[in-house]
């Protein structure tokens, strides 16, 4: 037990929390931006998966990591465009559309991977690149803090930049205001002569771009290849994180970090011969408990 506690307070542990949280942070922001516009984008899961593969392909064929990133973001946007087309244009139910697209992403990635490499499981046949880790000049030399915060992937830092941008964006920009209004009272902005659908479309496309970054992190930083179904529910966890944060970027970020911490903890517990199945089960179970706890609290407050 003491050993476990000492691990939790180690710099390595915090480092791994940040690393493991990165894809969840991207996913959470992707969920958040569309949810604030009034669209529950449960297809973030599939969008990330699709972008993860496309990023690998883009970097392999484009010859450098940045084309890979660009392709990942664009494919995230494309995928969200499909959601938007069906939900906003053809008026499908957003949840069912999300489920359909998640299933599609799962099959489509294998389909494409097989056509390109002849393999249905991993992308080792593609010479893909990884996003570099960077050490931050002054920060790295600070003891402990440097170990925790320096040396992460470029995308990890970008995740926090994205959070900051979204926070400001929602508050200070015109589109951000429209997005908040669209989620809160769609009729109000409709009568203001702003098309709710266009606002939601834009929110979904932004959501797709962010999910694309999250997917790129999975296949180009977290590990250095694509494997089938590699997103493994992180998009769904993001739904929970965003729900717990009530759509507030900062609170949702904290929730996402909590899941990252649970993930890191379960990885560490494995070292102590704790059954690996149960440690991997833990973050999901904690999510359910936390979600229920917050829902119960919100319900109680509403009653008051």
């Amino acid at each position: 037990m003491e050993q476990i506690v000492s691990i939790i307070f180690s710099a390595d542990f915090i480092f791994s929390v940040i690393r493991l949280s990165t894809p969840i942070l991207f996913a959470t922001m992707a969920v958040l931006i569309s949810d604030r516009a009034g669209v529950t984008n449960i297809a973030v899961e599939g969008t990330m998966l699709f972008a993860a593969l496309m990023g690998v392909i883009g970097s392999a064929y484009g010859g450098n990591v940045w084309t890979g990133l660009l392709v990942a973001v664009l494919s995230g946007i494309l995928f969200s465009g499909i959601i938007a087309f069906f939900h906003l244009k053809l008026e499908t139910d957003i949840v069912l559309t999300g489920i359909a697209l998640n299933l599609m992403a799962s099959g489509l990635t294998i389909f494409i991977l097989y056509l390109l490499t002849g393999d249905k499981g991993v992308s080792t046949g593609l010479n893909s690149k990884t996003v570099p880790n960077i050490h931050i000049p002054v920060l790295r030399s600070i003891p402990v803090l440097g170990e925790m915060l320096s040396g992460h992937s470029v995308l990890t830092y970008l995740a926090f930049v994205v959070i900051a941008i979204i926070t400001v964006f929602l508050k200070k920009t015109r589109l951000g205001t429209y997005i908040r209004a669209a989620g809160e009272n769609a009729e109000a902005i409709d009568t203001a002569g702003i098309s709710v659908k266009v606002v939601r479309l834009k929110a979904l496309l932004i959501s797709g771009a962010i999910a694309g970054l999250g997917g790129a992190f999975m296949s180009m930083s977290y590990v250095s290849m694509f494997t089938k179904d590699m997103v493994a529910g992180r998009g769904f966890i993001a739904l929970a994180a965003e729900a717990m944060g009530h759509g507030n970027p900062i609170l949702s970020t904290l929730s996402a970090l909590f899941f990252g911490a649970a993930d890191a903890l379960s990885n560490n517990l494995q070292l102590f011969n704790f059954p690996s199945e149960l440690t991997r089960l833990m973050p999901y179970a904690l999510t359910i408990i936390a979600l229920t706890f917050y829902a119960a609290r919100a319900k109680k407050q509403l009653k008051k």
Partner: protein
Amino acid sequence: MKKNNLIFNMATTALAIVISMMIAFAIIFLVSEDPARAIESFLLGPLQSKRLIGSIFTTAIPIAFTGIAVSIMFQASMFNMGAEGSFFLGALAAAGAATSFNLPGILGIIIPILVGGLTGAIICSIPAFLKIKWGANELVSSLMLNYVTFYLGLYILNNFIRDKNFGALASHPLAQNNKLPRIVQGTSLHAGIYVVILLIVLSYLLIFKTSIGMKIRMLGQNPEFARYSGIKVGGVVIFSQLIGGMIAGIGGSVEIMGMYGRFQWTSLPGYGWDGIILAILARNKPQFVPLAALFLSYLRVGASAMASNAEVPKELITVIQSIMIMLVTANALLKSFKQKMVVKEALTNGTNS
């Protein structure tokens, strides 16, 4: 007017199928070196042999189970994704019951199925309970729950029912009297089909012919109306999810006992998601599930045939079925057509007031 609605729904479904098949053909043309052969084996492959025809039915069985399960859960307007976990853990529980106890004769079939059903029922009722009691979003909690059941299942498999002498991670083998008998020589079709037919009939009766079914539908359509009418909403919601979970759990048990010698799934098999596809195609009506299940399994067997004959990956089918269900749920697809129908009727009947 009811007829109009039915026609409208059928037309939408037909159009969705046509459009998605066109997309399928387009993709085949793009990726295949011999598109004619690919399309031929896709469309006609399933009819090539008795074995393949049999496999249309055996493929349809598990998805029909989850299809009815999800239909019932969706009737109550609960976006419960737990059928996946119920199916998985139900199958595991059935295998566990079958291999742990020496059950004589017919009990060797009945008890594992019941254990599987009960397990499934518990799983799917958890998100419902959390929703009713504390307001937790069932969509998110059931998604998380699927992972919990998956890892829990692996843990149980590894530590309690694993056959250590077997090369891979798997349970002890099922005894002969734990297996559902084959019913047509030369095919894999097993007695599970009787179970699924029975459950379809019972589900239909439950939803459309009993007062509890009526209550499920009422609260699915308008919970406030249900409450006003004197229905105990919480109880009915949980009941509907229990039944749905139970059917999914039975489905898992039947699949293991009909198709496999032991439990050896090491990833979630995805039948819960298939159930959602079927529920959408069948518009949550259990009586339409078998048709939708056979249709989907025909496509899948066809896709497999295409994969072996023409090198087009069978995952094409997941793309196609996703497009199909999105189009089926597309209200706007034939909206102007519907509107015209209504206006025409209004003008002729003149029902203004």
